[in-house]
């Protein structure tokens, strides 16, 4: 680890690392290397081990949303004929693919596409359209939604065959060869990053949590795309160390007193991130549980387990397992209530959200609220609705606290 990295806080290191990954893709493009657009939960071990630069349209969708360009880009895509009911990340991406410019953020244009539907099936249709539009190869690793708690042998064989096939096709497209020793090493580094990530987010169980839970939304980009690199592993270890030190002292980066702790379910409303955060922070509410905590812990011992790990990403599991992940995380991190984001963009996530909220409430006995929003289209969010529901949640959490004191 270099001196400069040691001196900087981990969150700065992570932000710089994210910028570096993006910059490397631009540099590679300038050198004439083949660059890919990649689905966020595509097995990064393949591209990292092969040294193939990839960028993530979903991350761009989030960043454009956060920087205020979501509505403009979504409306442009709607002008192209895309329904306003579709995922806003995809609408932003279609607009960018057509306009070839975006003032909030740009990513190098792709020579191929890497799709994986463990996050949602809409990725498939989205990438089909891009491939047709740009006339470039589309490689799909299909990870069928789990209908049982564990990923069965049939699925593992199927995913493994696609994994191997994808490597063969990427070798043809990019001219780069897969080195199995390098793959092994990337897998080891990815484990190191995942363990460090888990250790870092594990400190949310401390009282108070040593950090503002919304920081997870900022840090997860590197956890997602860069975890196969030594720099990411070291940065997450540093992050975990920093949280450990804060927790030991009973300190936190959360501004103000942590009066209440909540689970936040769903993708952030990037276009209203500041507002959604402030409405909580000013009431002393810290986010101490989110599926993004355990979500990026891809732990495996061998290639077959790696295949299974990608089938266990959030929302790819059967409902009972998804529920268990949330309930366990909430109990472990001692939350007082939960906020569920009914995300207009995400039919997959929203399709079971009401039942998830009901069952979560039944199993934990905790108060919950649901609010309507969207990951990057600002038009689907109402400040008044959010405010009113958060206020209602606070009232119940406060009552519960009083009862606890009396008891």
């Amino acid at each position: 680890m270099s001196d400069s990295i040691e001196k900087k806080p981990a969150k700065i290191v992570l932000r710089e690392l994210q910028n570096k990954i993006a910059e490397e893709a631009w540099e590679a493009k300038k050198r004439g290397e083949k660059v890919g657009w990649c689905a966020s939960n595509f097995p990064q071990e393949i591209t990292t081990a092969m040294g193939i630069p990839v960028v993530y349209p979903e991350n761009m969708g989030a960043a454009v949303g956060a920087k205020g360009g979501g509505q403009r880009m979504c409306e442009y895509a709607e002008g192209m004929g895309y329904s306003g009911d579709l995922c806003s990340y995809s609408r932003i991406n279609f607009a960018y693919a057509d306009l070839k410019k975006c003032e909030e953020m740009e990513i190098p244009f792709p020579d191929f596409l890497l799709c994986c539907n463990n996050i949602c099936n809409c990725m498939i249709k989205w990438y089909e359209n891009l491939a047709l539009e740009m006339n470039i190869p589309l490689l799909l690793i299909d990870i069928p939604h789990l209908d049982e708690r564990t990923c069965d042998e049939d699925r593992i064989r199927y995913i493994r065959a696609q994994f191997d096939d994808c490597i063969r096709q990427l070798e043809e497209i990019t001219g780069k060869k897969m080195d199995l020793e390098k793959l092994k090493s990337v897998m080891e580094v990815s484990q190191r990053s995942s363990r460090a990530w888990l250790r870092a987010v594990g400190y949310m169980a401390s009282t108070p949590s040593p950090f503002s839970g919304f920081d997870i939304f900022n840090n997860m980009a590197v956890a997602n795309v860069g975890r196969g690199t030594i720099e990411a592993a070291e940065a997450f270890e540093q992050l975990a160390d920093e949280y450990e030190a804060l927790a030991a002292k009973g300190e936190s980066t959360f501004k103000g007193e942590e009066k209440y702790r909540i689970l936040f379910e769903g993708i952030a409303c990037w276009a209203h991130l500041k507002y959604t955060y402030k409405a909580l922070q000013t009431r002393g509410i810290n986010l101490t549980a989110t599926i993004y905590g355990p979500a990026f812990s891809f732990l495996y011992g061998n290639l077959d387990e790696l295949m299974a790990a990608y089938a266990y990403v959030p929302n790819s599991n059967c409902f009972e397992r998804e529920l268990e992940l949330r309930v366990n995380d909430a109990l472990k991190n001692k939350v007082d209530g939960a906020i569920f984001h009914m995300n207009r963009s995400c039919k997959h996530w929203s399709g079971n959200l009401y039942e998830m909220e009901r069952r979560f409430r039944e199993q934990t006995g905790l108060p919950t609220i649901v609010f309507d929003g969207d990951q990057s289209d600002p038009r689907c969010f109402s400040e008044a609705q959010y405010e009113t529901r958060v206020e209602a949640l606070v009232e119940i959490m406060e009552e519960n606290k009083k009862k606890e004191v009396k008891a």
Partner: protein
Amino acid sequence: MNALNRLKNITMNPKAELKEAVASGKKVIGIMPYFCPEELVYAAGMLPFGLWGAEMQANESKQYYPAFICSILHTTLEMGLKGELDDLSAVMIPISCDSLKGMGANWEAGVKNVPVINVAFAENRKIAAGIEFTRSQFRKIQKQIEEIAGRTVSDDEIRKAITIYNENRCAILAFSKAAATHPAEVTAADRCAAIKAGYFMDRAAHTELLNEVTAELENLPASDEGYLKIVTTGIIADAPRLLDIIDKNKMVIVDDQIAHESVNARYVIPEAEDPVLAMAERLAEIEGCSVLYDPGKKRGTQLVEMAKNAGADGILFILTKFCDPEEYDYVPVKRMTDSASIPMLQIEIDQQMTDYGQPESAIMAFAESLR
């Protein structure tokens, strides 16, 4: 046309078919879209019963699904929640789209009397590993069906079921072809009802009735003079009021790329030593449906070819509201039909719709532009 009337009556009251089957001692399995291995149900001596929603208002389902999920899932769940499908011994639910991925858990939570059979198949369905995965999942489903049936199902029984289904597919296509030149005898609503009846009755009996109608039509002179020829594409197009609008504007459906109608009929299951492998191989062949992985958008190519082959004046893209796969497909498909200079109109429908003013105006204007 007695056979046509019989088919229409079945479509008008599918629940009567369900009651009758159960009363006769037959077990019935609900089959949700898309591409479930219903031949296995038939092979086990049970009745596969199609669940493609219904024209009704969904209320209770909104406790499970948000409003922005398609009406096929909302209204199917609604029927389940109201106990209208309690006679089913199970329901097959695939994971073909993001909204369907939530259906299994919602159903299990709200419909306690009818167990779920989850159906997974490969999206990467054309590669050997994909075909093998689909085969493995269908074999797994076969075991669940055997448990419900209380007996094993042999490969010979599956082969016989496949033959009956293949014959039915051919009968649907032949009927569709005959109906294309006989709009005076078979309205758009009749055409849909005749095909749809197959989802609620014994497939062999459906074939017999359809063939009877087809034979009668083939003996009649064509009645399509002055009609605009259209091809329909989409998930489902069974709303009688929408189909009446098509008739009113003197349009005849000369072919369709509707998942609920001919998409399923266009592909037969090949003969093979392993009949379940053959079912997986058939799935690998299907084109023209947005819920299946379709790099290169062969759906659009196929649609253009269909329209050209049928001498169609135009295409109706009947978009099921809140259907992501359809909404994604629309843009490239529209571009492809535009390139081929084939006029295409998009109509958005929903089974909870009560006001058809908008589609009526749009179709009327479209028809005028084509004449």
